[in-house]
């Protein structure tokens, strides 16, 4: 593909031809979950109809084909994020499990007096695992704040990350403010004091070109269903040398070397962290998703989204009574735009928009501390992906006018 052609892209997504309440579907909720192109669905169907078997356990032909398909998917994901080796890629069920895995495995050596640092901008999935870890171990949880512009407040960096800090876990792109955090200074400081850095890339990997070596974090987590893949699959990437030292989290089949009644030894990574039958078809689907994204080009996708975001910010700014949260220009932010319609509760905004076929998310977006920070209990959020158009943003704007009419 030479030029990005959104009309052609849309043809790959059967659901986009659906009607909602008599209107064409305008899906602006991809930060919640993305739709799947036929290319992904077909690969999974073929897997099930031709190659289905369990992996890593059978010498038979189907088992070998399945294992190859599963490991090829791992290699594709590794290439997609610039990992040095497929062995750095662990398949989990979603981002949330990947983060919990780290909280338990790296967290196993954390104790009283140690500190874990997160931020006020985190998704609940990057808050609760650390609260639970601190409860289990007596470590202290500390937080970066958010500036009025919706950026990480780094003013206290040198004190916040100190020699007691063991783990720093931050969102790379906020799922509510859209902010793309430039984490280079924080990573540098963390490494200075010997702390490990986990980045929650659930919103960045699907939308930006990302290279783990350049990024410089020690671990990252992301999730398949937000990047055109199926539900039931997520990824933990970690530096090979770190992963090798991490103790297992879930125990069971396929993560062992030898099991005896007295004592069990564990397989090398990534197997060590993949107990039980993994999400095989889902990994294969994610591999196909990554192929699809790569064929179009992550740079092209990102540029398309910058265009949409700029258009949306301008359009929403032009509507009386609408206030946008987070950075006001597409610089340093992704295609996730949360806003408020004066005097109307987001639930009601979302309901009226749905009536017009416009699907946005309303609520606290699993990021309640961000809502609290901005003094609201919830927000309305429109989020974009490669298949969205500026015409859909016009539909959103028309919907917001309708909202104002109903609640005037």
């Amino acid at each position, binding site marked *: 593909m030479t030029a990005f052609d959104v009309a052609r892209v849309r043809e790959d997504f059967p659901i986009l031809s659906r009607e909602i309440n008599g209107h064409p579907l305008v899906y602006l909720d991809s930060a919640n979950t993305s739709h799947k192109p036929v290319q992904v669905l077909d690969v999974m169907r073929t897997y099930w109809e031709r190659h289905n078997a369990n992996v890593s356990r059978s010498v038979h032909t189907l088992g070998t084909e399945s294992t190859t398909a599963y490991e090829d998917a791992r290699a594709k994901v590794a290439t997609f994020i610039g990992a040095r080796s497929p062995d750095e890629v662990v398949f989990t069920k979603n981002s949330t499990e990947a983060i919990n895995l780290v909280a338990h495995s790296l967290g196993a050596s954390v104790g009283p007096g140690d500190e874990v640092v997160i931020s006020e901008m985190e998704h609940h999935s990057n808050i609760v695992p650390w609260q639970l870890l601190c409860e289990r171990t007596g470590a202290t949880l500390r937080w970066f704040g958010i500036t009025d512009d919706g950026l990480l407040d780094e003013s206290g960096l040198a004190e916040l990350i100190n020699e007691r800090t063991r783990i720093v876990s931050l969102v790379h792109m906020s799922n509510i403010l859209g902010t793309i955090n430039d984490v280079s200074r924080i990573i540098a400081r963390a490494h200075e004091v010997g702390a490990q850095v986990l980045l929650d890339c659930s919103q960045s990997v699907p939308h930006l070109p990302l290279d783990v070596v350049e990024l410089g974090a020690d671990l990252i987590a992301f999730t398949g269903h937000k990047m055109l893949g199926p539900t039931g699959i997520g990824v933990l990437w970690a530096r090979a040398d770190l992963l090798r030292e991490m103790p297992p989290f879930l125990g069971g089949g396929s993560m062992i070397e030898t099991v005896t009644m007295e004592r069990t030894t564990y397989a090398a990574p990534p197997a060590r962290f993949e107990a039980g039958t993994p999400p095989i078809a889902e990994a294969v689907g994610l591999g196909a998703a990554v192929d699809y994204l790569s064929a179009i080009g992550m740079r092209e996708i990102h540029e398309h989204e910058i265009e949409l975001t700029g258009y949306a910010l301008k359009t929403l700014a032009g509507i009386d009574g609408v206030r946008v949260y987070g950075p006001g220009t597409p610089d340093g932010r992704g295609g996730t735009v949360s806003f408020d319609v004066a005097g109307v*509760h987001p*639930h*009601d905004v979302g309901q009226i928009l749905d*009536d017009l076929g416009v699907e946005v998310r309303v609520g606290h977006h699993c990021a309640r501390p961000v*809502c609290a920070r901005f003094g609201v*209990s919830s927000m309305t959020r429109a989020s974009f992906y490669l298949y969205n158009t500026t015409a859909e943003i016009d539909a959103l704007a028309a919907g917001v006018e309708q909202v104002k009419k109903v609640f005037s």
Partner: protein
Amino acid sequence: MTDQLYQEIILDHYKHPHGRGLRDPYSGEAHHVNPTCGDEITVRVTDDLSDISYDGMGCSISQASASVLHELLKGKPIGEAAKIHEAFVELMQGRGQVEPDEEVLGDGIAFAGVARYPARVKCALLPWMAFKDAAARAGVEVTV
């Protein structure tokens, strides 16, 4: 479509809520949260239901529902309040199949349309569930 949901009665209660604000004295209080959207309500009751007061943040449906609750249950004999409470919950959980009785539910019948929106049923029920807990803490059982 959403005309069914946003009936005039509901919008009226939302814009002009009855009995809103927390008052003393009271015998039981409960605070409920809708975990999906973060909406909250606090309800207080006296043990004879002579006052029901409430405050919270929420959408039009949950706010109007609290106002209707206040109107329907305040000052009612406990047995009657329990019957109205049950009728409202039944209406909400009926997936749009239950025919509401205006004699019992008064303005509450405007919520019949909400029952067709599973995601909003929780909004409508939020004050009613908080009321039930508050009443229980005041020693009043509103289960028939």
